[in-house]
């Protein structure tokens, strides 16, 4: 197998050791960026979704406004505003914030996190609202407090309903991360663009990253199928 690979590599000018390393660096950046933004986004989204279901408009409305803004504008524009906009703030270069936002990674992470948190908030909110009223009444009848009801009944039940929609959000986020390369970040797409511009071989450079993105997507799909099987175990018929 390595011999076959070595032979394959020797037959072309593009996939040399150095370009493979560039793709590898891009893969690491993409995975870091997507993973961190999804984790942070989910951590933000759960409390925001609970606030969003509040009947008090003072609690509900700010969260609604946030999700409305971030779902109502393209991610690319959000990235441009955060990346170029932050640099335009007077005097930011003298503060410690600049250490964080000078590079391209953290502005991109911020944009992606806020974006995915907005979508995830609405996904979880929808699942919470759809909780059967009987489950809540039963919990109340047991004398559960609001917090205990949320933790034991509503959120686990909502998680089961949200998981399929959320798996789509995760895959969309992976694909949306391709735009990180417009702010000089060398993610998978950025690596492909660099290699394309060096060798003028768009097909080879881009088909290769397309395959990597596909492989990543298949891994995500597989992981979510396992998760769904686990969460929705009780719905499967008992096998004879």
């Amino acid at each position: 197998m390595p011999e076959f690979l070595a032979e394959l590599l020797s037959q072309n000018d593009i996939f040399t050791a150095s370009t493979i390393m560039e793709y590898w660096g891009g893969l690491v950046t993409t995975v870091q960026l997507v993973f961190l933004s999804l984790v942070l986004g989910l951590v933000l989204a759960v409390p925001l979704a609970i606030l969003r279901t509040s009947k008090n408009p003072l609690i509900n409305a700010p969260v609604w406004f946030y999700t409305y803004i971030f779902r109502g504008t393209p991610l690319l524009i959000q990235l441009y505003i955060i990346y170029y906009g932050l640099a335009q703030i007077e005097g930011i270069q003298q503060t410690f914030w600049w250490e964080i936002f000078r590079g391209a990674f953290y502005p991109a992470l911020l944009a992606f996190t806020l974006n995915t948190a907005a979508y995830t908030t609405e996904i979880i909110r929808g699942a919470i609202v759809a909780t059967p009223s009987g489950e809540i009444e039963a919990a109340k009848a047991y004398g559960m407090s609001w917090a205990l009801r949320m933790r034991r009944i509503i959120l686990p039940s909502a998680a089961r309903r949200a998981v399929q929609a959320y798996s789509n959000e995760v895959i969309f986020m992976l694909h949306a991360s391709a735009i990180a390369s417009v702010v000089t970040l060398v993610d998978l797409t950025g690596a492909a663009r660099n290699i394309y511009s060096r060798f003028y071989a768009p097909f080879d450079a881009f088909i290769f990253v397309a395959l990597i993105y596909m492989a990543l997507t298949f891994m995500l799909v597989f992981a979510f199928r396992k998760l769904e099987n686990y969460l929705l175990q009780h719905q499967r018929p008992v096998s004879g």
Partner: protein
Amino acid sequence: MKKLIVAASVALSMMAGVAQAQERDLRIAFDVPYAPFEYKDDDGELTGFEVELAEAMCEEMNANCEFVIQAWDGMIPGLLARKFDLIMSSMSITPERAERVLFSEPYYNTPGGWFAREGFDTDVTDMDAMEGKTVGVQRGTTMDTHVTEEMGGIVNIKRYTTADDMVLDLEGQRLDVVFVDYPVGEQTILSKEGFKEVGEPVKLGQGVGVAMRKRDEDLAEEVNAALATLKEDGTYDAIMEKYFAYDIKM
């Protein structure tokens, strides 16, 4: 009388048709704005050094030219897909490009220039001093190749699609210094307050040529002949002097 007019106009249009048939149709691609080589003036007309040179070349070749605007990323693919026949958009001759397209003799060469904000005092040729600095280049240019080969691993290289985005990051202090085609830096960076040129301009590469499809060898011969005539008869110099205070002729 009426018949005569009709006959005359038919004859005229036939003559015009014959004349046109002898001219060849050529489509030439430019990526704008890339001042002062190709850009749109205040009236929206395409102009610039290469545009005027292309006009003179078409006249010399007795060709009927149409100018096409094409973004840089799609230049070579567009040429190969026959969307146009010639690229005259400051495309530097490199071995990698020469594998895909056929280049004419070079018709100009400009150096790369280093530009930074006022207060940048580092010597750009001193690798120890440059260590850890962030350098901006346009992706895939000869400046990119130069910095990647000479300073890769020493400086942080940030690659941009357009010069505008790069200048924005130089202003925002994300970049310490940029290395860009000299006339472009002169036009877009030095024209602003608080920026300066650092170090010496660096001569790079084999110059800029007209790019054509590999199979169009006859066309390349015609282009070379026309460019040689323009360089000799003073037309080239006259156009160059309109746009540049220094010599870029090759």
